[in-house]
């Protein structure tokens, strides 16, 4: 039966359309002979796969695989009841990011504009040194170590960002854009660069730098429209970003807000898209970094757990970050989250919370940032000895028309 064999080969290679794939699946399920033939086709193709040139994964891959399995316990942290009764009003048109973007000129005459440009150039320099084809990715950090000192990445010092010319910026939104480039992924990047510079790094640190650098550049482009217009145009294209991207990145990762490292665990992560475009993903990511930095710096051991759920709140995705905290640190976190915005007195922690509030206000088209807090679209609560930070984001509905095309892969 050459036609059937051809169909089974095409099916295994992901070449069939969805409808045809479904027909093959039905046939395999009800006809034992077809199932047997399918099994042989798969084994034959497996031989092709085994012919791939030998490449050894980094040693920490197995550890990450095992961490995934050992920590995949759903909902370790119980959600407060008030959170489960949320039913937020959704805007008619779904927010797809980009609303926080300003031009570099909006930073005024300050040297902040130069700092942003220099930082972006530093990220470009770092790109080839930590990418998946770099020597560092294979565990050879000599080139990265050598270059790490000369890369023009100006790392912020803790509690110095807000006092460094920020208050003279006339444009409110520009202050937020600038701080987003300084306070989200950059502090953790500083931690890993320092490790590398001091000769304590390994391939896993290079991998973490790869993610942080990529996120940093996306966040920077989403914050300043004229920073890299060519790549921003790519970021603005419709391209679904799944929760899996976040899970893979955060699972078992070491994260550090300045010099407070801790381990990140991932609990329940739903399967499906979270954002529609890179610019939206950058904003979502930025919110996660803000809360990760706040919570990590106040948790008992620097570590925390992330969960993403799309079943608790109608047509919304709920992101929760939880960690064991002392009651003093919990109170402090709660104060930071509920604190009203005062430009003159706002410190870095306050801005981390404010950036998330602003983002949620944009996503739900609220008139004030305090409305986001009052309607529980973000918040901070205590459950047992843990602090729970959360924010809510409009979900992408199942009948969404666009997005990333994939092979009609029957096995995924």
């Amino acid at each position, binding site marked *: 039966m*050459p036609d059937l064999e051809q169909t089974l080969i095409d099916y295994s290679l992901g070449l069939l359309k969805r409808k045809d794939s479904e027909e093959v699946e039905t046939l395999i399920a009800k006809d034992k002979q077809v199932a047997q033939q399918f099994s042989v086709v798969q084994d034959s193709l497996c031989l092709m796969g085994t012919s791939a040139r030998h490449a050894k994964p980094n040693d920490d*891959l197995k550890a990450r695989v095992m961490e995934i399995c050992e920590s995949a316990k759903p909902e370790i942290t119980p959600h407060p009841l008030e959170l489960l009764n949320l039913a937020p009003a959704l805007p008619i048109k779904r927010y797809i990011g980009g609303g926080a973007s300003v031009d570099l000129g909006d930073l005024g005459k300050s040297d902040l504009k130069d700092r942003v440009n220099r930082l972006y150039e530093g990220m470009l320099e770092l790109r080839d040194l930590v990418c998946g084809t770099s020597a560092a990715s294979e565990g050879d950090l000599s080139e990265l170590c050598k270059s790490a000192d000369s890369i023009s990445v100006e790392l912020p010092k803790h509690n110095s960002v807000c006092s460094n010319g920020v208050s003279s910026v006339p444009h409110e939104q520009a202050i937020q854009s600038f701080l987003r480039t300084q306070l989200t992924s950059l502090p953790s990047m500083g931690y890993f660069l320092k490790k590398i510079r001091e000769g304590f790094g390994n391939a896993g640190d290079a991998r973490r730098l790869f993610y942080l650098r990529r996120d940093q550049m996306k966040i920077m482009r989403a914050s300043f429209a004229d920073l890299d217009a060519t790549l921003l145009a790519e970021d603005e294209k419709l391209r679904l970003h799944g929760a899996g991207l976040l899970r893979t990145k955060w699972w078992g990762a070491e994260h550090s807000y300045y010099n407070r490292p801790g381990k990140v665990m991932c609990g329940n992560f739903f399967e499906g898209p979270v954002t529609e475009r890179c610019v939206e993903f950058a904003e979502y990511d930025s919110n996660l970094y803000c809360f990760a930095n706040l919570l990590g710096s106040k948790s008992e051991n620097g570590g925390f757990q992330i969960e993403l759920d799309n079943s608790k709140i109608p047509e919304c995705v709920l992101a929760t970050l939880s960690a064991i905290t002392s009651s003093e640190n919990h109170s402090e976190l709660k104060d930071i989250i509920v604190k009203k915005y005062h430009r003159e007195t706002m410190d870095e922690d306050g801005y981390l919370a404010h950036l998330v509030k602003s983002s949620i206000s944009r996503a739900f088209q609220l008139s004030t940032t305090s409305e986001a807090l009052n309607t529980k679209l973000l918040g901070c609560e205590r459950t047992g000895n843990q602090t729970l930070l959360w924010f809510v984001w409009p979900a992408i509905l199942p009948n969404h028309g666009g997005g990333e095309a994939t092979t009609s892969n029957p096995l995924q």
Partner: protein
Amino acid sequence: MKVVEEEFWERIATGDTSALAELYDSIGTKLFSLSYQILNDRWDAEEVVQDAFAALWKKPQAFNPQKGKLTSWLMVLVRNRSVDRYRSRKRRKDTASLDTVLEVHPADESEDIPSSASQTDEKQLLGSAIENLPPKQIKVLKLSYFKGLTHPEIAQELGISLGTVKSRIRLGVEKLRLSLPNSLR
């Protein structure tokens, strides 16, 4: 072998993490090599392998032992996810040339020494299976398998008819099948 793999799967389905660790030890490097050959990017390949194991752990019933071997299923899963990712990257004009992926790679000197006789046998079996294929069939199979090109894309790339592409793939797979041990045919 199939029985052993079914045992792995049954243990994984009951939440036995040591079974997953053993499965990783036996096939992790092969899966990574496959993904790395397609993507030519270490971080991407690691992500694909990590996600494949996570998918199996989270939803073991996605694999059905009635439909074949667990390792074959995982290889197909990793291959298809890698190809998806490769295509996505290609759309963003961020990909290596065809030649990079299709060049013949000599055995890596640092390659692990097979730890058992069965591994040696498997390599010999595999070597002869691929060697026995006519070069034209190998080329079409590689474009399809490692590059994820569709039949029309391969036809265009090589300047041959669609029917020729299909028949070369089918004949290639048939010859690979003949190299499988009788018990698996």
